[in-house]
Each structure stands twice: as C-alpha cells, then as structure tokens.
C-alpha cells in the first residue's frame, strides 16, 4: 500500500517526538554520564574517567553477584509466571460456571502497585510466618529469593493469564473440533495443537516477563530491601544504591548501560527463537 510521506510524518511524528524527548535524550545523556566520576550534586566536581567505570564492573563482586542472582531469579520466575498463568488461562476458558469469577479474582493481584504489594508480603513472610513458627523467611538468603519469586508470580500470573486467554480464544473452534474428531487426547491437543497456535502469545508473554523480571525494583526494595546482607539485591536495586547510597553517579550509570545491553541481548535472542516457531493462521 503506497502512502505519501506527508501522511507518514503526520501519523508517526507526534509520538516519536515525545518519545525522543522523554526516553532517547535522557538515555544519551546517561551514556555521557557513564564516562565521568561524579557524586550527583551539581556543585561538586565531575571528572572524566573514560572507560574506567566500565572496567570497574568486572571487579565489583557485589554487582556480579547481583547480576547472577537476577538472572537466576528471572529464569525461575519467568517459568513459574508463564506456567501458572497458562494453567489459569486454560482453567478459566473452560465452561465451568465459576470460570468468569475466577478470572476476575485471579487478576486482582496485578491491580495492586508494586511497592505496597511488597510491603504486604513482607509482613506475611516475616511477622506472619514467625507467628506460625515457620520462621522469618526474609533473613535467609535462599528463602528470601523464594519469597521474591512467589511474590512476582502472584503479582504477574494474572496479567500473563489475560494475554493467554486472548490467544486461546483466538484458536478457531474448527481446528479443535478436527483434533477431537481425530481422537486426540486432552494432553495431545494441548501440546500439538494449542501450543503452536499460542506461539505469538508466548512470544509476547516471555518478552514481557523477561524484561519485567530483569528490571524488578519495587518488589525488591519493599519485600527484602536487598537483605539479608545484600543477598537478595537485584540489578536495579544495585544500580539505584550505587547512585544514591554510595553517591557514585557515573559508575551507577555505567552499570545501568551494561544492564540495558544485557537485557537487550537476551530478549532479542528470546524473541527470535519464539518468532521462528510461530505458526500463522
């Protein structure tokens, strides 16, 4: 379809302009800042240090640990969130009478903002657990990690469920009927018919959950506050602490840029893999 340049500009320029000003320019400024050493206060001096900040990353044990930790947390959470979300979606698209109510109830967690959600779960995992003698989970580094995964799953499963519901409902009935007529069992239908057709949904959900988990911040700071002893500090929190607690603005920015590159690479890989397996209808 041929479209004249005028229309093209009219349709795309407003959004791109705003986007440029709000996201691209600060990002570029941020890159600039990653080459200096500064404590963030305008009146205090800034000194140019070139790539020092980037090299420093390799010797920063705390950052490397938090990188590893975030990766583990993300991988596990992505699996849980998507599996749980998909199961919810499958249940909720059956013809059970309570399916509609269930769908609403299961989505409710997503309506609660991240910070407050973190605080509420924090009191569940610490005070409540203490009162039933399960011990304070947040003082043990493995259990704190499990807590993060549980809260993330709780919050995001409903959201992912919605996307899957849309995907499931878009599967034409005739395809399912054909499979039924051919005598396919429930599981067979699930894996050989539904999944391939759900690939676009998988692409979107995996992409969104991967990026959201990598970027996790609200829940991290409210639930565990990076405790115990920074053993549950994820990427975003590490960068935030670097910039604000330790007043290393330039170094923090460098870490943020690296962080972004890592996420970009991983998600691009993910998208290209799942896109290849998408089956067009």
């Amino acid at each position, binding site marked *: 379809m041929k479209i004249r340049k005028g229309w093209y500009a009219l349709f795309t320029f407003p959004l791109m302009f705003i986007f440029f000003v709000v996201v691209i320019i600060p990002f570029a400024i941020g890159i600039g800042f990653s080459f200096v050493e500064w404590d963030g*206060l305008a009146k205090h001096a800034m000194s140019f240090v070139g790539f020092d900040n980037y090299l420093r990353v390799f010797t920063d044990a705390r950052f490397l640990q938090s990188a590893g930790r975030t990766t583990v947390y993300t991988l596990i959470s992505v699996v849980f969130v998507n599996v749980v979300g998909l199961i919810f979606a499958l249940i909720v698209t059956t013809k059970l009478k309570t399916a509609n109510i269930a769908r609403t109830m299961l989505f409710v967690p997503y309506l609660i903002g991240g910070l407050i959600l973190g605080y509420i779960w924090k009191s569940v995992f*610490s005070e409540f657990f203490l009162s039933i003698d399960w011990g304070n989970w947040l003082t043990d580094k493995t259990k704190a990690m499990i807590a993060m995964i549980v809260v993330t799953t709780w919050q995001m499963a409903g959201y992912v469920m919605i996307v899957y519901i849309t995907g499931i409902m878009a599967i034409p009935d005739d395809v399912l009927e054909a499979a039924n007529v051919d005598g396919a069992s429930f599981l067979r239908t699930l894996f050989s018919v539904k999944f391939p057709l759900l690939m676009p949904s998988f692409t979107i959900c995996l992409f969104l959950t991967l990026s959201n988990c990598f970027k996790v911040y609200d829940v991290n700071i409210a639930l565990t506050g990076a405790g115990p*002893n920074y053993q549950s500090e994820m990427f975003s929190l590490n960068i935030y*602490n670097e910039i*604000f607690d330790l007043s290393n603005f330039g170094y923090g920015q460098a870490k943020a840029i690296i962080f972004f590159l890592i996420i970009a690479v991983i998600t691009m890989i993910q998208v290209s893999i799942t896109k290849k397996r998408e089956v067009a209808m």
Partner: protein
Amino acid sequence: MKKRTIALIIAMTMAFGCITGCGNTAPASQPTENKAEVSETKTPEAAPEESSDDFGKLVIFQSKTEIMDKLNKCAEDFTDETGIEVEVWETSGDKYFTDLKTDLSTEAGPTLFSLAPGSESVEMADYLEDVSDLSFIDKVSAGMVDEVNGKKVGIPYTLEGFGLVYNADLVDVSTINSTDALVSFLEKAKADGINGLGFSQEDYFLIMHVLNTPFAIQDDPDDYLSKVLSGDVRMIDNDAFKEFGKFMEAVRANCKNPADITYDNNCGDFATGKTAMIHQGNWCYSMFADYDVNFNMGITALPLLGNNKVAVSVPAAWYINTDADEASKKSAKKFLEWLYTSETGKNYLMAEFGFVPVVEGMTSESLDPISASVADVAAKGDTIPWSMANWPAGISTSLAPIVMQFYVSDMTGEELVNQLNDAFVSANK
C-alpha cells in the same frame, strides 16, 4: 454502541485535557498557577502591608514525617500573619535525603530544608546559606547551631536522646551500672521468660545507636574517630569496644534476634511488658499511645565502661538553600524568626511538634516523660554526643549486614568488632 462509548470516553478525556491544559500556562506567569490551599486567604498580588516583591515564595521540604500535618497548619498560620506564600513538600521518610539531593542538583530545590548536622551537612556545604544574621542566633543553646566551613548554617529543631528505655516494673536501673551488671540482668531476664533488651531490625536501631556509645565515651571522640578511619588504631584494642563485643555476645545469647523484630513490634513488646528495655530514644514515646501502658518508664545509659550518660544531640536542623533567589531566602529567614521568636511559632514548636526547647527562654509544658528526662540531662550537660553523625555517609548500609550475620552465626564479639572496623576503614576511602 461500542464505538459511541469509546468516542464518548475519548471526548471526555479530551475535555479534561483541555481544562488542565488551559489551567496551567507557561511559567512566565506568576506563581498564581499554584493552587496550594495556603494562598486561599491571601493571593500574592493582593498581599497587604509587606510588598511581596521583597519576600519570595517559600518552599519547605523537610524530613520529619511525624510533624507534617502540623507543619502544614503552621505554614498556613504564618501566611495568615505575614502574607508570604508558603509551599510545603511531602516526603516519605526513607528517600528524603536522596530526593533532596536530586532537587538541589536540578536547580529546582526547596528554600528551606532539613539535614542531620554532621556528615550530611558537610556533604551539602556548598548549598548552605549563612544564617548568622538571625536575631535569635545567640540565644540558641551552646554548641547547637551547626557550623560548616566556619559559617553558621543550621538552626536546630529539637533535642533527641537515646539509650536504654526501661520499664521500671521489670528492671531496677540503679543496679545496671556496668556491662557485667547488664549481662547478668539479661541472663536473669531470659530465665524469667522476658526479653531483657529489645533491638529492632532497622539500621539505626540495630547498630548505629548502639555503636555510638563506645565511640562517644572516648576521651576525644572526634580524634579517635579519625584515627579509626585512617587505620591508625584498631577498635579491638580499645576497652570500650572490648566491652561492646562482650555485650553483643550476651545480647545474642539471651535476647530475641533483632532481625525478626520491626520497630513497630519492638515498641509493642515493650508497651505490653514482654520486653524489659529497648534501645531507643524519646521519639518512640508516640508509639505507645495505642497501647494501655500501665508502668513507669524512663531512659538510662548503656553502661559500657560504667557510662551513665545518655547520648543527646540535635538530630536535624533547618538549613537555607543558598541557590534560591534572594526574595525567597528572605522569606525563609523570616519564617525561622517567626517560628523561634513569635508566640504562635513557639507554640507550634513546643506544644504541637513536641520538640525539646533549644533556645534560651523557651520552655515546654508538653514534654513526654522520656523527652523531659532528655531535656533535663541536656540542660545539665550530662550527656555524650552523637559520634555517629560524623561517620562516613551511608555507612549504616555496610554495618547492618555484618551485625545481622553476627546474630545468626557464631562470630565472636572480637570478630564482630574487627569486621565493623574494616567497614569504617573502607567507607573512608
């Protein structure tokens, strides 16, 4: 049907958008766009006696969340009396210092703000206005005006003191006058089934306040601190710290693990008689209001090396932003004058905020029992300082994890002191 509803929603939002868009024009216009309820009574243009050219808008941003509501009212009263427009920004505690630095750094900072005198005010030295021309500056109690780089810059809010807040029914503090006595009390308390001494998990309550005592009881705290930071001396060689190590071991053996206790619950435990003493300060008194407290309480010192002095200091002070325009700075100074010398202002400080008087001639009838004790010993000079105010900024985040680890492992008191020592030295780099 659906199309129409969507169109309707969009139309409504466009309408909203227009209304707000038209309401807020470019900043070239006067500050009238600011709909702060404060200027209900007097708009800046219509200001009477004082011409508002002299006094600019005053923006206050401070850290004490407990007084926020009353501060808003206070600002309204100030505007009623003087016609100067005041805007009070909100904060949510934790992020205060971060938010403040961001604001000051982007040339959009508040006129009047608070800081903890010490490493915070030193870090922000370039942003602090000289306030020695305030009329009551000489009446402020000795040593309480914050001086940085030779300039007088900080007006103290109040006094705060911390130590062992005790339940007189559960403990006889006249017997707790040495580390050994304290340790035996803790052991006895454990045998009796109560928590002898409760700490809570927040950085300051967990370790900062506790570690303050051994530093503060040195002959020359400042000098000792700088020697520790430079690595010239090791804390473990000092008697005060040796006792500190012993004390911490006793706490671990006989008391509930602080990592499991929040400030809320620590106060709750104390108020309900489950904990005999908490390591806290006069600010915590308001936490007891929700409980039926039926015992007498007081505050006493942590008796390392026989210390009997509570640690008292100025926790926060008012500072003026030196980058603000002259007119606003004038307003800020006028506000401080009004707050500390006028009857209405002083009433706010004493009765409403519950502050301890720090200026000669100010007295308070409304101090709670703990604050009254603090004011008492402060007046007598029978106190130890807050050495922690001079520790490297942000060090609490390095110390807390070490202590948390201590409580769940078999780290010895000596190892604890050494690890804390190392944290100080590396924070100094």
